[in-house]
């Protein structure tokens, strides 16, 4: 299965959690850090991303970019 990676534009995240709920592999979570707007941004906290892109399609603020790692 493809391996992937999620990049978060932390400054624009509003901590809504829709990506965390949508991720089929549960590799995302709300982090403990705080961005300049006072929200806790989402982060990828473990391996296992399959580069499906569902999190990015669910995000209302276009903060997620999904990359597939080609080996």
């Amino acid at each position: 299965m493809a391996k992937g990676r999620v990049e978060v534009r932390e400054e624009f995240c509003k901590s809504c959690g829709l990506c965390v709920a949508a991720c089929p592999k549960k590799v995302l979570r709300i982090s403990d850090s705080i961005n300049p707007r006072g929200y806790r941004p989402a982060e990828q906290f473990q391996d296992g991303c399959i580069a499906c892109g569902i999190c990015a399609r669910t995000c209302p603020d276009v903060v997620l970019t999904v990359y597939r790692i080609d080996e």
Partner: protein
Amino acid sequence: MSETKVFGMTPTWRRDVHTHYCPGCTHGVAHRLVCEAIDELGIRDEAIGIAPVGCAVLIHQYMDLDFIEAAHGRAPAVAYGIKAVRPDKIVFTYQGDGDLASIGMGEIVHAVNRAWPLTVVFINNAIYGMTGGQMAPTTLLGQKATTCLSGRTAEANGYPVRMCELLATLEGPAYIERVALSKPQHILKAKAAIKKAFENQVNNKGFSFIEVLSTCPTNWGLRPVEACQWLEENMIPYYPLGVFKDFE
């Protein structure tokens, strides 16, 4: 080892702008789907949007497109004016339920009936968002709002309006579909529907109307993920998804 971008930002979305929407509001998803449809069809230079009055009033700050701000509910009338003088342009309106289904009800019915090639994206979140959660024409029976504190009742407030079914009875429209943004699979269908609505206008096929069931976590008083579940459980049974009219 190299990397391929699977999904990223579409060029029409303005990169450095914070949207003013509440966390978890699916307006952002609808904006992105419109941007993606425009970029995939390559009509960014031809597209002219009509901004509504409502939560999406600042849509022109989030999309790198030409926009005109219309008076409350009058976006279809402005769109007709633009299409009349510049028939080569791709004209679309993006309206909420307080705008299109309430004060703009007259405009949309006559706009649909005139059947020129235009695209209307109608966001239905069953409440007035910008003004603070008042009852909208689309508020469900039993749903609480700041102007029906114990829930909407048919005796006092009448019944919620189903816009797609209403407009599908007219001869004018070429394409009417209702989609939702509560789940990834619904978002994919919404993307296809919005793209088709723009494609119809590019091919001069007539009026396209897309109703998008959207969430309003703040005024519904729910967390974003709960709001998506609430939409699934309450709105979709009353507002069934699907194609109501298709010229093909």
